């Protein structure tokens, strides 16, 4: 243990070298803006800036990329909160409560809570990483398809059991999200699937951002203009140091539980191969709601609903580095690109990396600590700018949101087909929103669909079609049972009230 601490201290000093520190600050700031731009996420930032890093030594290069990665994780929350459009897939869950808070004139509270939760999530993940890297990698590898599918089921179940929304509409919303995620090619047989009207644009599937931006950027905006009759008056408070500190205190007091859940759950989901920060943040949101004393406050502007996913996505982004470094298996698209970079730099990821290249590994981990701190500082210092954006007249803000939505819808896949599709989703979302259909579950489902379907099919293949596989395995079993109880919860409630009602009358 002392040896690890010594190496870690060396790593932090390495990250604090002037050249590396400068790379961290540039990386974090760039990442913040790339993350805040709808349609662009850490993947884009890391992929685009990867070639630049060949100019500096490998240790500095990966420090720079890690800083972009961190910055983007913080940045995603900004557009989720201020504009209501998720800046990146990892920030989808942040819109659920971040946007309502901003509409109530509490954008500063939401942004500060998000920044602090992100920082705590990142720190917890770094500590876990430092202490348990090799051990956790082996536990995560024991998660097979049945366990991962059980986790997905749990994520959907939290929406059904605790939604407080119309149950058939919630289930409908989840299913349509999952079906939309199935469009494209069937991964197992390789056959084209659900290609509506033989339009070639459906061949590459429906990117979740097309749905998310359509729902939040177009549909939700139309609904907001309609329901407020276009007269939105922003009551946003001025940006003062005292107010920010008060918000920080209030935010932490009311969201420590969500932050804790997000930090630990996010880290573990991040480690799982093929999961990563997006499912991590969605599940953290679900579990925070599940364990909350006031689940009905979620979705209406509860700081906990901002803190849980934000803590989780930062935690997961560190977590997803773990299998990459220790086993050579990337946990997310971004780490897949980082892995590619490492190979180009002449490093071989895998168990030997910790022994052969300790300077690189601990330099990277040291840079996680330093990047996380600077990401918090840079983010907090930009909050006044984001708040000022909200004080603009609504017609300016709205037109900007529409422009960002259209550009974001295009940038995600670079196909005009998807822009039209996004527009279609937007108008449909507006009508469905008016008819009280919850749309967040559909967005959740299209994100988790590509994980849920293959794991279900692989599990059933393992068991030759016997669904008992989800119940009789030590980890999958309990998770599945909890998920089923949650799905049936509304039914229990219904009969309970009916029974009580009968008794009271009698």
């Amino acid at each position, binding site marked *: 243990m002392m040896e690890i601490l010594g190496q870690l201290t060396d790593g932090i000093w390495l990250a604090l070298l002037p050249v590396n520190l400068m790379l961290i600050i540039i990386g974090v700031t760039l990442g913040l803006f*790339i993350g805040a*731009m709808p349609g*662009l996420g850490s993947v*884009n930032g890391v992929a*685009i800036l990867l070639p630049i890093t060949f100019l500096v030594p490998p240790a500095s290069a990966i420090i720079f990329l890690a800083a972009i990665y961190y910055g983007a994780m913080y940045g995603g929350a900004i557009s989720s909160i201020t504009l209501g459009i998720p800046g990146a897939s990892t920030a989808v869950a942040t819109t659920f409560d971040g946007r309502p808070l901003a509409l109530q004139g509490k954008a500063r509270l939401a942004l500060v809570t998000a920044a602090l939760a992100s920082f705590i999530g990142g720190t917890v993940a770094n500590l876990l990483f430092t202490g348990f890297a090799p051990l956790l990698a082996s536990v995560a590898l024991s998660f097979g398809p049945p366990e991962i599918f059980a986790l997905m089921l749990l994520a959907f179940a939290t929406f059904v059991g605790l939604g407080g929304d*119309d*149950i*058939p*509409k919630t*289930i*409908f919303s989840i*299913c*349509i999200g*999952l*079906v939309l995620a*199935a469009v494209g090619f*069937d991964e*197992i*047989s390789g*056959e084209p*699937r*659900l290609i*509506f009207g033989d339009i070639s644009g459906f061949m590459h599937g429906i990117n979740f951002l097309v749905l998310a931006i359509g729902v939040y950027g*177009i549909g939700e905006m*139309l609904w907001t*203009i*309609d329901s407020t009759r*276009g007269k939105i008056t922003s009551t946003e408070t001025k940006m003062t140091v005292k107010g920010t500190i008060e918000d920080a205190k209030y935010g932490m007091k009311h969201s420590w539980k969500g932050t804790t859940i997000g930090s630990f759950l996010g880290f573990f989901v991040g480690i799982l191969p093929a999961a990563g920060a997006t499912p991590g943040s969605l599940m953290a949101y679900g579990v925070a709601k599940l364990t909350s004393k006031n689940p009905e406050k979620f979705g209406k502007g509860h700081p906990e609903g901002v803190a849980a996913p934000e803590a989780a996505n930062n935690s997961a982004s560190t977590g997803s580095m773990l299998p990459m470094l220790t086993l050579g298996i990337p946990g997310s698209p971004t780490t897949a690109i980082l892995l590619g970079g490492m190979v180009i730099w002449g490093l071989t990821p895998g168990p030997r990396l910790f022994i052969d290249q300790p300077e690189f590994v601990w330099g990277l981990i040291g840079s996680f600590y330093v990047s996380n701190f600077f990401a918090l500082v840079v983010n907090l210092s930009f909050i006044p700018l984001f708040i000022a954006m909200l004080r603009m*007249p609504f*017609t*300016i803000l*709205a*037109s*900007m949101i*529409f*422009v960002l939505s*259209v*550009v974001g819808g*295009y*940038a995600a896949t*670079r196909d*005009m087909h998807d*822009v*039209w599709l996004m*527009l279609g989703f*937007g*108008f449909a979302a*507006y*009508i*469905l929103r*008016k*008819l*009280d259909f919850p749309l967040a579950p559909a967005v959740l489902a299209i994100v988790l669909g590509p994980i849920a*379907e293959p794991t*279900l*099919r*692989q599990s*059933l*293949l393992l068991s030759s*079609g016997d669904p008992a596989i989800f119940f009789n395995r030590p980890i999958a079993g309990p998770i599945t049972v909890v998920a089923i109880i949650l799905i049936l919860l509304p039914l229990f409630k219904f009969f309970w009230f009916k029974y009580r009602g009968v008794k009271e009358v009698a």
Partner: protein
Amino acid sequence: MRLAEIITTCVLALFSIYLMWKSTELEIGYVSDEGPGGGAWPFWLSAIMLICTGFIIKNSITRKSVPSQASEPLLDSYGKKMLLTVGGGILGFVALIDIISMYGAMFVFLFYYLKILGQHTWKLSLTISIVTPIVFFFFFEALMRITLPKGMPFLEPLFNFLNTIIY
């Protein structure tokens, strides 16, 4: 709004049936040694959707859902006007992209929204609608190396000139 809810849900029910039918293009049963076929997942999910629409219609008829208790129509006169001006504006924006490029369409849309819908001053409307596309151009084309649609060929000389600034 009750009628609107019932009609919309019927459309969704038909859509579910269409999805079920479309899913049968692939195997929907269990294929031995291959697991469930490629159509099984969307087929059964669409089936659940169809069942849900049944419950939604039932709740609407018995006036248990929120919209079925509301007396106002789905779209009142304000809603219709908003959908026409704002929704139509976005539709026009997207339609213009292939003709006058993403940046040109952005200019037209912003100017329309700010000057005509927002009734801002000429100075403000023009400044925002000219500066925004320029900022987007340099952010996407130069910094991110993502090319956005450039419209029809007649705009080529303009973009060739702008590209000489970047490269």
